[in-house]
């Protein structure tokens, strides 16, 4: 493997997730990958992202996917752009590592899978938490039978509002996540991690989901808080809560709880509270971080495994069907929250999900 040339990457979308996660991951894998081109509607952002690697920058992603010297594209764009960009990449014979959530609709997801399958290129959605050492250890413990059969999975993710003077991460005025024309809200923006992890840890497909959601941040136009309850085909229950409305200074944290027939697993970001300041009449958490589980190791592992799969002609480590299934659960939760009624899902995803289309 060592004598194979690096996989040549085109990075599409040069916003915050590219800068904080994907570019550092690319830089840490010089033997495996090389950044050749970047694209962003904001050419300055594309140029900045390209600078360190000496890559070329474009304002139109098509110029990246049409380059013959690129093997794969890394899509770090909003989900409402994914279908068009994946189809273009596949048509040009490029493999795709696509940021989560996969798409805003199952129809888009199916077209993405179909396009990659037809073109014979690989598609993986970057559900980075699957690649954290924390959650890989949890999955291994379940597989070993450490807690018996899983009875209940809880995934909570709580984010505080920005401190005075800080810019909000999501849901700020003018940000696309707050625009109902292109965003359904917290369930896809951050909650897609929860729907993915609930399935992964429950070890079964959801058969029913109930959700309640609300808009808690002033000026926001989409739900930024959602709580969902899931029944899985194996009888396990899942519960997840994604909120972005905690007061500034409250310790943002992520919480996993798994209860099995003979044990339990818990994981909480206690390190997020590493600094607690007590003052007369108040305590706060000035060291609270806003990017939960933003673990660089996970992004590096994710990219490294995907690229090795391309080089060695192996299955990608996370089939696109898994991302579609997480999306399916998330969209069902939205439908439930809108209707006020539980939504029933078939125990098995649609036939198109089977067989790892696009792998």
């Amino acid at each position, binding site marked *: 493997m060592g004598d194979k040339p690096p996989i040549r990457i085109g990075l599409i979308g040069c916003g915050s997730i590219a800068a904080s996660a994907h570019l550092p991951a690319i830089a840490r894998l010089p033997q495996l990958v090389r950044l050749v081109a970047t694209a962003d509607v904001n050419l300055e952002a594309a140029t900045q992202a390209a600078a360190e690697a000496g890559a070329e920058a474009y304002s139109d992603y098509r110029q990246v996917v049409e380059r013959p010297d690129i093997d794969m594209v890394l899509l770090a764009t909003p989900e409402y752009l994914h279908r068009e960009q994946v189809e273009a990449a596949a048509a040009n014979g490029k493999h795709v590592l696509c940021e989560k959530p996969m798409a805003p609709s199952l129809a888009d997801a199916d077209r993405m899978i179909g396009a990659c399958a037809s073109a014979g290129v690989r598609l993986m959605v970057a559900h980075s938490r699957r690649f954290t050492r924390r959650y890989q250890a949890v999955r291994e413990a379940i597989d070993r039978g450490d807690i018996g059969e899983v009875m*209940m999975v809880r995934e909570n993710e709580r984010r505080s509002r920005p401190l005075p003077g800080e810019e909000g991460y999501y849901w700020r005025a003018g940000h696309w996540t707050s625009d109902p024309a292109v965003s359904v809200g917290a369930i896809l923006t951050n909650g897609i991690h929860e729907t993915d992890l609930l399935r992964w840890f429950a070890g079964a497909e959801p058969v029913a989901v109930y*959700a*309640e*959601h609300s808009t808690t941040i002033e000026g926001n136009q989409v739900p930024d808080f959602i*709580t969902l309850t899931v029944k899985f085909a194996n009888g396990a*229950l899942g*519960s997840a*809560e994604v909120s972005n*409305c905690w007061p500034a200074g409250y310790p943002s944290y992520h919480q996993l709880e798994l209860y099995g027939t003979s044990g339990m697993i818990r994981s909480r970001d206690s390190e997020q509270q590493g600094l607690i300041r007590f003052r007369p009449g108040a305590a706060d958490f000035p060291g609270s971080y806003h990017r939960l589980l933003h673990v660089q190791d996970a992004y590096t592992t994710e990219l490294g495994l995907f690229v090795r799969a391309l080089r060695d002609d192996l299955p990608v480590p996370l089939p696109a069907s898994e991302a579609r299934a997480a999306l399916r659960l998330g969209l069902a939760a939205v439908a439930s929250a809108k209707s*006020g009624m539980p939504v029933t899902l078939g125990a098995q995803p649609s036939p198109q999900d089977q067989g790892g289309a696009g792998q």
Partner: protein
Amino acid sequence: MTVHKLGIIGSDRRAAALRARFAPGSPFAFGDFQLADTAAAASWQAVLKDRSIDALYLGCPPGQRAEIALAALSAGKAVLAALPLAMTIADMAAISAAAVTGSAPLLVTSDLRCTLAGRSLLEMRTAGDLGHPHSIYLASRWPQANDDRSAAAQQTERLWEAVDFMIALAGESPSRLFAIEGRPLPGGPLVLFNARFGSGTIGTGEVGGILPKPAPVHDPETEIEIAGTLAAVRCEPYRETVQVVGGKGEPAAVATSWHNDPVINMLVDLAELLAGRSAASAIGPEALQRLIGGMAALESSLVGGAAVSL
């Protein structure tokens, strides 16, 4: 100081805890009350005939509480009972009405309302310190049990307690409620529920004996987290305990510090009521009505599998 004589009917875990608090040498002994010797009484009717008894704790099964509570209140004896007060809405309402018209006070409460954190939370909520609550999360768990009967009693009580507390924190009746059960467990399955309240508050609840044995956490373990417009709160009301794990291979032993002892705090509140003052932990008639409606919706959702609008 007036010392009231307290009689105990029934033998639930709280009755045992009360007796332990009054045992000779107990560091928890509470001076406002003297414990009546009701163990030898032939029946609860005999206890009611004892004129020296001022107040009764009902530690009998919930299905028996209504008849005894009504008789006790009619006999002029104060009644202390934890949730659930009775098993039917009609019985609940009848007891509540009897307390309003009678001369003796009725204190319906829960362990959670009688913890320091629980009490403080309700005070903060009432005072408006939290602002409008966007979300309320409440989880109540305990170790999986072998004894189905006591486990079932605990399941019932904790479910009522959790729903009551969530409604109290929301400050209004739920407008919609959904509940679902997990796999069978001794005493009853894990119950998850979601509640939507009229002003937009959303609640998420989890109640069940789902912890492995011996539980490496406090028993019961309750977590509450509230995101309000003005402030947020996270607490574990039963945390303030002394936990001993190990020794001779025995499971965890938990001793409660006196000032966070729900049983003692119930008696404190009962003494307040007997003195003609208000009791912080009391579930008043209006709150009881909200709770009854909420529990009816929860039961209906569990049976029908649908969300129930109130």
